[in-house]
């Protein structure tokens, strides 16, 4: 991924958020993250401000604010990594299909009377075993791509915090700007501690489910 791709995804407009929120003086510190929060992508878009003369100026000022730019860039990173992960999965799918074709060929070959020689048969069996091993590795590689969803959610959480800090500071300064509330998206509260090892929370989740089901049966 390079800057041109990020710029293309962002439509050339990172950090354009501006609003007409009035300054209310010093506000309490940002609330701790909630389960429901604004969606992160794309970058905040301009909100119409009542005085047209100042609208352009607002946008210019807001886009120069680093936090707004960073939120937009993070949104672009998540979109690009999802797209590129899908390309890797396309390649893995193609490898799977090629392996299937090879296995069909080898199976046909094994039935051929002209290659009933035990040495050749043994080699053919080894090829089949190798095909199966390669196929399993391909599946494992596909399953490991779950890291993309987890990384994306971690970035979404960071973007959510940045937005809160951004709005808080601007409110404090009395600039009248605010990042545009984006479409609703729920965020995981435990994403920061989520690792990339498959099934690392399985025992924990299973025990909570079992406990719940047992309690419900009794009740």
């Amino acid at each position: 991924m390079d800057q041109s791709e990020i710029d293309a995804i962002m439509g050339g407009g990172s950090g354009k958020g501006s609003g007409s929120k009035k300054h209310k003086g010093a506000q309490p510190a940002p609330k701790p993250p909630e389960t429901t929060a604004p969606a992160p992508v794309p970058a905040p878009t301009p909100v119409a401000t009542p005085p047209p003369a100042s609208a352009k100026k607002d946008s210019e000022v807001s886009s120069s604010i680093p936090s707004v730019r960073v939120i937009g860039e993070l949104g672009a990173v998540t979109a690009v990594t999802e797209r590129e992960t899908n390309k890797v999965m396309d390649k893995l799918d193609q490898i799977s299909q090629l392996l299937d074709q090879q296995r069909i060929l080898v199976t046909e070959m094994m039935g051929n009377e002209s290659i009933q020689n035990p040495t050749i048969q043994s080699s053919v069996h080894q090829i089949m075993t190798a095909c199966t091993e390669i196929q399993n590795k391909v599946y494992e590689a596909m399953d490991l791509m779950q890291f993309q969803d987890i990384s994306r959610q971690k970035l979404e959480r960071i973007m959510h915090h940045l937005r809160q800090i951004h709005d808080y500071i601007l409110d404090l300064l009395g600039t009248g700007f605010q990042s545009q509330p984006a479409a609703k998206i729920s965020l995981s509260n435990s994403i920061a501690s989520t690792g990339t090892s498959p099934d690392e929370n399985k025992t924990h989740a299973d025990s909570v489910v079992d406990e719940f089901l047992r309690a419900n049966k009794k009740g």
Partner: protein
Amino acid sequence: MKILVVDDSSTMRRIIINTLSRIGYTNVVEAEHGKAGLEKLAQGGVEMIITDWNMPEMDGLEFVGAVRGSDGSIPILMVTTNAAKEDIVSALQAGVNNYVVKPFTPETLKEKIESLLG
């Protein structure tokens, strides 16, 4: 057996659908959030749901609530990064039948699906 897979991550939907295919379930429909999931359900024929929690438009918990409002028996498996005990309990109270925390192994997904269908 027609299975509905709801997740906003296209990567995740693909991984789940691949796993389903490997264990013999190839009749799959997909949706990118709860709202789209309800539309797919309305088309009929779905016998099991695998849903994410954190999604735009309509999250997994709202989706499960909406499904349970009209269908108390369809098996629902939630597959999410939300690992906190209170989250798991909320999902179970909303009506999910079982729960898998991402990242998962295909064996775990298989085990949960088979236990729901068995």
